[in-house]
């Protein structure tokens, strides 16, 4: 049985926790708006690039296609690029991403493929290391900058393409959260390298002139496309993190409120009981005289 003082301390501690979760929730709500508008602002570029890629890729095919599009001819060694957040306090977001990554890894391993991880963000490292300690290759730290932007995407893409050119892996998959709403963030698995050929080639009859040539343009375009994919993933991660954090903190604040209410009732009851006992003692004492 906790004493009255202990109960009081407990209420105090839950109250200060509630203050923290409430503050974090409001910060997340403000940041979410910014992250969402950033994600929206990036969309036109991605759409244009994808459209151009689609029209070009359908024209350049066969042997002349660059390696980034055609692949290495093997699908043995897989690289999983897992994008996690750097900070916690965002509910089940990171464990969902890790779960999706593990499922993909299991699927590939069961098919007899090699799997290696390339981790972006801090929070995925520990849970993946627990199971696949020897499969973790590189790690890209995004916690040093406040909001990861195009420069970070650029750096990650450069490193991935360098590893690809050096023949370190055959296929790269990108695993990142897609922001649906503040309540829902789905982990998504996309093939990153080789760049998947678009299914719908637009067959406009217009004869387009290319300068320098189709292949040269495509060669320059493909790394840019990979970069844009990564940039999009980083933006989605940012929005997802804030959304998940907002929801999780809202729940935590509400739970703390319930707990405080219960503890208060308990405290008052206990206090009343103590007063009653004291009164009974005094009356009994007076009567005995």
């Amino acid at each position, binding site marked *: 049985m906790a004493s009255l003082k202990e109960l009081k301390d407990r209420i105090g501690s839950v109250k200060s926790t509630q203050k923290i979760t409430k503050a974090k929730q409001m910060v997340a709500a403000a940041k979410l708006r910014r992250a969402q508008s950033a994600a929206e602002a990036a969309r036109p570029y991605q759409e244009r690039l994808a459209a151009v890629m689609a029209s070009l890729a359908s024209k350049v095919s066969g042997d002349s296609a660059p390696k980034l599009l055609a692949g290495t001819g093997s699908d043995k060694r897989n690289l999983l690029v897992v994008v996690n957040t750097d900070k916690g306090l965002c509910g089940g977001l990171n464990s969902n991403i890790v779960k999706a990554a593990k499922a993909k890894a299991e699927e590939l391993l069961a098919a007899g493929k090699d799997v290696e991880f390339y981790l972006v963000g801090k929070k995925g490292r520990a849970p993946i290391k627990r199971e696949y300690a020897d499969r973790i290759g590189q790690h890209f730290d995004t916690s040093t900058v406040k909001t990861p932007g*195009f420069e970070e995407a650029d750096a990650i893409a450069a490193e991935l393409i360098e590893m690809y050119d050096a023949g370190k892996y055959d296929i790269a998959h990108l695993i990142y959260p897609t922001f649906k709403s503040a309540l829902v963030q789905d982990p998504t698995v996309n093939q990153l390298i080789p760049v998947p050929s678009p299914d719908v080639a637009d067959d406009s009859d217009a004869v387009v002139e290319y300068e320098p040539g189709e292949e040269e343009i495509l060669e320059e375009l493909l790394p840019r496309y990979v970069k*844009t994919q990564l940039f999009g993933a980083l933006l989605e991660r940012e929005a997802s993190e804030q959304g998940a954090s907002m929801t999780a903190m809202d729940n935590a604040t509400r739970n703390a409120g319930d707990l405080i209410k219960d503890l208060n009732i308990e405290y008052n009851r206990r206090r009343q009981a103590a007063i009653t006992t004291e009164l009974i003692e005094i009356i009994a004492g007076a009567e005995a005289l």
Partner: protein
Amino acid sequence: MPLHFELVTPAKLVRSEDVHMVVVPGAEGEFGVLEGHAPFMSTIRDGAVQVYKSEGAEPETIEVRGGFAEVGDSGLTVLAEHVEG
């Protein structure tokens, strides 16, 4: 007839407007785009895109880095990785 010109970077849609002519620093030399230009695609080198709002007007220059230009039915689209200013 004006030319529809769009300048897009990963961070945002920088320009979307109707102009008279745009001179783009293509990888193999500068080229000017007017309304009704044939479909065309080119990579661009780092340099200034010159936007002529109307005929004979002073051009407005925008420094761009890395990207490519596409001319289609909908006008000119310049996708640049980075835009100065």
